[in-house]
């Protein structure tokens, strides 16, 4: 009897899975060309093709290249780092696309050990586009050398393959189950912000619509400001408390408002952004260092400051400085060493999300101060 009931449950579960898989397969996807933020030559076509092949293999409907090119030419789409409202609507109404996959390549190095880092997101189409899924991967050939170096990956193609397997797997899993992976519990404390201020106005129970503005780039790395924006979107999306406005929509509105931010966002600019996007929080900041190294020697370095401005109070509700190097806290045999700036930035930004939502009112700062928000 018990066996019969249990088997009934299993089959119900399987049917549910099958249904969601079927509905996922009905989801029409357009895959944008890969945005190259690595500022180096990279196999962009191969990365895109890897997504196309894996999705098609699983039975998903992917818009073919010819139709995509025609659509992009018709709407004069040159920016491939996001989609604005008009384009999203056209995708839905004209060619019946449900989601657009946007991939940004952060790092590619073919030199031994090879390195790759990318962030992909699936944005819905229609009148009000939003981010359905986002994931990232950052790998270096010497991340897990293992005994006698047996775990080393020396072939860049093999590393790209490994990265694409992870990303496509995550996307397929989302499309099949429509559930997103959440908090990474394996956060290393060394990546916490070194100085942080949190206003009591930022509560753990709040739900915020967040606009992440491009960070001012004072580093030598090209596109470091845009890269950090993607990290913030990726990491804040892990928490249920943040609805992130897609950078494509934000870009369109900023261009429309003719906002120029020479030294950060002013309150007048913030008011305009809050009003037009109906956002609750603006995230902005400054990148001082975003370094990756090529080859064996060297270490990655990330240094940035973050500011959150809240709509109601028109005040800074969070301010922090984060900096880390790849060998922080590494003493023996490179154990715990991080080989890409991407991997460090991911954890550093996730810590900011953790501190904003989970930390009580306590703040860290000047040692002589009370260290407590009034």
């Amino acid at each position, binding site marked *: 009897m018990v066996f019969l009931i249990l088997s009934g449950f299993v089959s119900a579960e399987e049917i549910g899975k099958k249904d969601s898989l079927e509905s996922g397969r009905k989801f029409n996807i357009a895959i944008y060309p890969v945005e190259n933020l690595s500022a180096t030559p990279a196999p962009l076509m191969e990365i895109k093709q890897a997504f196309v092949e894996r999705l098609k293999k699983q039975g998903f409907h992917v818009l073919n290249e010819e139709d995509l090119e025609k659509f992009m030419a018709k709407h004069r789409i040159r920016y491939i780092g996001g989609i604005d409202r008009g384009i999203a609507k056209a995708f839905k109404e004209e060619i019946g696309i449900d989601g657009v996959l946007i991939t940004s390549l952060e790092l590619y190095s073919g030199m031994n050990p090879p390195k790759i880092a990318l962030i992909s997101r699936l944005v819905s189409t229609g009148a009000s586009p939003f981010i359905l899924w986002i994931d990232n991967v950052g790998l270096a050939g010497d991340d897990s050398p293992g005994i006698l170096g047996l775990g080393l990956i020396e072939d860049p193609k093999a590393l790209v393959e490994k990265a694409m397997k992870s990303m496509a797997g995550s996307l397929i899993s989302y499309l099949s189950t429509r559930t997103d992976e959440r908090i990474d519990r394996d956060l290393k404390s060394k990546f916490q912000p070194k100085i942080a201020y949190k206003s009591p106005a930022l509560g753990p129970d709040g739900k915020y619509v967040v606009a992440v503005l491009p960070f001012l780039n004072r580093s030598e790395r090209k596109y470091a400001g845009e890269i950090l924006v993607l990290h913030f979107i990726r990491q804040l999306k892990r928490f249920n408390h943040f609805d992130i406005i897609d950078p494509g929509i934000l870009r369109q509105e900023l261009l429309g408002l003719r906002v120029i931010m020479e030294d*950060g966002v002013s309150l*007048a600019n913030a008011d305009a952004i809050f009003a037009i996007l109906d956002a609750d929080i603006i995230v902005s900041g400054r990148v001082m260092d975003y370094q990756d190294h090529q080859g064996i020697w060297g270490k990655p370095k990330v240094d940035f400051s973050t500011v959150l401005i809240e709509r109601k109070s028109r005040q800074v509700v969070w301010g922090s400085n984060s900096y880390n190097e790849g060998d922080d806290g590494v003493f023996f045999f490179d154990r715990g060493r991080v080989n890409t700036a991407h991997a460090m930035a991911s954890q550093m930004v996730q810590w900011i999300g953790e501190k904003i939502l989970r930390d009580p009112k306590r*703040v860290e700062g*000047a040692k002589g101060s009370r260290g407590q928000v009034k």
Partner: protein
Amino acid sequence: MGIIRIGSLLLRTSIFLALVLLMACATPSGDTYIDQNMDFGAIKTVGVMSFANLTRDTVVSERVRDVFINSLLSTGAVYVLPTGEIARGVARAEVQNPTALSGEEVVKLGGIIKVQAIITGVVREYGEVRSGTTSANIISLSLQMIETQTGKIVWTASTTKGGISILDRLFGGGGQPMNVITEKAVNDLINKLFK
């Protein structure tokens, strides 16, 4: 007996003279000025201007300013305006040199951005110093607070952190990382402000 007395008197006189000379060599104590008539409790919001940069590295002043702003905010004692708002105020007040403001400019700027005080600063040294074969990081920073009602300087302080210590000379090591000594310098200045 008389010779002993004369000797003792000479010794005392020479000790006294040596002390007077030593005191004459001494500089006035501390590197901090605080206006005793100023009510610092009335300062609720401050603006931190771009720091003047006397070093070779062009982004140093922004780096130190960011650390200072967040450290000051984290004390919970005062609110610091976002840097973008300061930039807007500087443009509206038509300030010629935001790193060195005149009294009139401070009053005008204060009225626009609605702050009770403005903090300006100078980064005098930032980076690596060498002595023989030894090297270490150093930062030297001065700040001043100007009241926006009168345009008067109400607080100034300076600090130097890092540099080559005796241990560095003996054992090497290269001193502490730049970010760590920057935090130390900023904390030192904030402690002087809240003293």
